[in-house]
């Protein structure tokens, strides 16, 4: 696969999305550059999660175009997004609660497993070699995210902050090109947020990831992101580097709820 189109990994062009009569996104355009950390912020109900769902193909917009890796995208299913190298985490952690941390992260490798179910059930010969190789990748992620101590713990028994970390681990196990994070730091204390920020920055640096994230903690967003897209009522009200966005009167108004 040829990757060198230009530095725009994904472009969203004049996209609108409605559910019946409800307009979730109206005529929004923005792009995500390769290797950047791109934040999407906005008040509740601004259409942030909808936008993430458009990006990973879960929703298909009624209007507008999405260009990913230089190719305009047709309607697709979410698992196709995974095949194309888009991984995501969810606002309300979506893990297999009864399975261990390690097994959850291993599920992130399922697309990369080439041996069929029967081979895997036998766990011999090439299937075993393959499992060992995948286990190694997962162990490196476990080491990276500093979750060795919960390797064999069922994730349902873990505190929320650690579940978020495991979910990030599973997304990383897919070795994605584009990582979508829906409120990766919701409900975390300061220390956990700092850890998570560090993991995101390091993951980008070491793995050459592109990251798009939704986050409510404005301090974290401004520290972490290269560029920030601000949505309000499904419309784009600002887009730019954190310093500009921070001082934009429309953004301030949206967040403080004045001047409308």
């Amino acid at each position, binding site marked *: 696969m040829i990757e060198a189109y230009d530095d725009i990994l994904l472009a969203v062009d004049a996209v609108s999305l409605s559910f019946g009569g409800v307009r979730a996104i109206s005529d929004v355009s923005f792009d995500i550059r390769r290797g950047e950390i791109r934040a999407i912020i906005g008040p509740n109900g601004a259409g942030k999660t909808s936008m993430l769902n458009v990006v990973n193909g879960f929703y298909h917009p009624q209007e507008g175009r999405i260009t990913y890796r230089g190719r305009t995208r047709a309607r697709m299913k979410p698992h196709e997004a995974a095949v194309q190298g888009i991984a995501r985490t969810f606002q309300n952690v979506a893990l297999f609660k009864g399975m261990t941390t390690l097994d959850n992260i291993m599920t992130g490798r399922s697309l990369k497993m080439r041996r069929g179910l029967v081979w895997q059930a036998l766990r011999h010969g090439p299937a075993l070699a393959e499992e060992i190789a995948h*286990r*190694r990748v997962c*162990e*490196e992620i*476990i*080491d*990276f995210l*500093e979750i*060795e*101590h919960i*390797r*064999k713990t069922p994730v349902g028994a873990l505190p929320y902050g650690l579940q978020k970390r495991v979910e990030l681990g599973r997304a990383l196990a897919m070795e994605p090109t584009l990582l979508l994070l829906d409120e990766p730091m919701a409900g975390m204390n300061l220390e956990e947020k700092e850890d998570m920020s560090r993991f995101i920055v*390091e993951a980008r*640096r070491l793995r050459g990831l592109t990251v798009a994230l939704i986050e409510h903690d404005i301090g974290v967003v401004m520290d972490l992101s290269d560029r920030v897209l601000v949505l309000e009522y499904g419309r784009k009200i600002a887009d730019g580097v954190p310093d500009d966005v921070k001082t934009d009167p429309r953004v301030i108004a949206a967040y403080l709820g004045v001047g409308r």
Partner: protein
Amino acid sequence: MGSARERGVAGDTFAKLLRGHASARGGRAAFRHKDLGLWQTWTWAQVYDETRALAAGLLALGLERGETLAIVGANRPRLYWSITAAQMVGAIPAPFYADAVADELATLLDHSRASVVVAQDQEQVDKILSTRDRLPGVRRILYDEPRGLDGADEPGLAPLEAVMAKGRAALRDGAIASDLDRRIDEGRGSDPSVILYTSGTTGRSKGVVLTAERCIAAARDTVAFDRLTDRDEVLAYLPLAWVGDHYLNYAQGYVAGFCMACPESADTAENDLREIGPTFHFAPPRVFEALLTRVQIRMEDAGAVKKWLYRRFMDVAKRWGEAIANGENVPVFARLAYAFGDLVIYAPLKNALGFSRIRVAYTAGEAIGSDLFAFYRSIGLNLKQLYGQTEAFLYVTAQADGAVRSDAVGPPAPHVELRIAPDGEVQFKSPGQFVGYFREPDKTAEALTEDGWVRTGDAGFFEPDGQLKIVDRARDVGRLAGGQLFAPKYIENKLKFFPNIREAVAIGDGRDFVAAMINIELASVGNWAERNAIAYASYQELAAHPRVAAMIEAHVDAVNLALSREPMMAGAQIRRFLILPKELDADDGELTRTQKVRRRFIAERYAPLIDGLYAGATEASIAAEITYEDGRKGKLSGTARIVDVLLHPKGAQARAA
């Protein structure tokens, strides 16, 4: 009595011991470390090679004889090897606590005159870099784990791996290899072998200088005492900077030639313990306590059959376990019951705790509750007590197999001389005795008596069977205004034996009566709250709950009853107490890094609460400044209810329950 010199110079330094093991048992496991989920093993021959490579690399960097090499980090094979590599070239290793904040670390690094620092990872490197302007002497910072540091470009910063590679390449040159051999041969037993900084319970940390021959002489004594061999294995999880780790794991390991397994990370130590199954083990009382608390909580939640089996056979163990362990005469039916209990409860329990293979286990550092101690002894764990100090290179007293009790710390360890000064202070001379505090001759002089004995600063006395009993820090023992003896730690320890009480501070010197400030144990009280449908959102909220106060009051009453039966202590019962609205924390300066309460500091910070206790108030408020680990400051405020407790008459019998 044989000094190290008489026992031959063949193994009078750790570098020589390592060389000896490489040839005598080169194929046996020396170090393990769990990495990416798998245990990696190095044999003694490999460790010798790696350490030589490291030593040659350090020489190439210009590390000179007599310079200090600082080591900061967790238990990692290469950090241990750095210690030996420094010793090989005649430099002095000084390990530091990995959880020290940047400012604390900088002060100690500066004091140690470290020129090269071996740091475990980015976290430690960042701390050192952030204070580098205060550390002009630090020429090199070498790191073991490159993660997060591969792009870093700071003068003198380099990966340890690169230094070792350079050393390995240099050693191919015969001249350099034989120069290193010559350095090992020239190492003398009387050279300083290590500087261990004290934890600073009683003020600023001091650098305790120990010589190689004394370290090794002491370790030889206890290796013989506990019959340790190269078949033994330990989990090296104690802080690298602590004398306990340097003695029990490093020194004993290098003397006996046993294997040191380094845990994957601090958080996994418990799991790693189960996987390694050490044969020799040390843990402070609070670790044994936390484990027992967890077992008890799990049993509360277990099914009826398991619960019944556990209760039934723990009773058997309590009644007969210690007698069987001590080889006493025990009826046949009791032996049968115990054997069956071992099958269904004790052995599986020990296995779940990782204690199955332990031959010898020690605990020290604090008094241990008799119930807690008896629990582990009764399920067949050979748990013993020792009493030690950094200045002694650990052992002052140790209990021998079969002569174990919970309320004393044992007779003098082999070749240790012990005496009690007229004012009650314990003083000793020991084979591992320190040569002085680094760069503080005046402090050294203070620590020694005129006739050359080391002052421990602890007050104690000998029991009739020759075992030493420690009461308190000599200078903390005080008197109430009425003249009764007041030993705060003695009272605090009695309180802390209750699983619901994590920490306690007793006050009373010069006062009319004894008062106590108590920290509840969140794990066990939280579990109790859950079972009793008491909702709480934080420690603070739980601590303020009236039913928690009632529960703690019952514990305080039990302590008072116990005190009332001791002629010396009956006058020092607790009259009023409160539950602290905040957990005491080492990061806030309230505990030492080894988790001992800093009484003076707490007395200052919590002065408003103490005033409330003595002013007869029913509650008291506090506003305390908190410093977080990264140096930021915050405020904590809270209110505590004060509870009055009834005192028991001297020599009282138990009140009807």
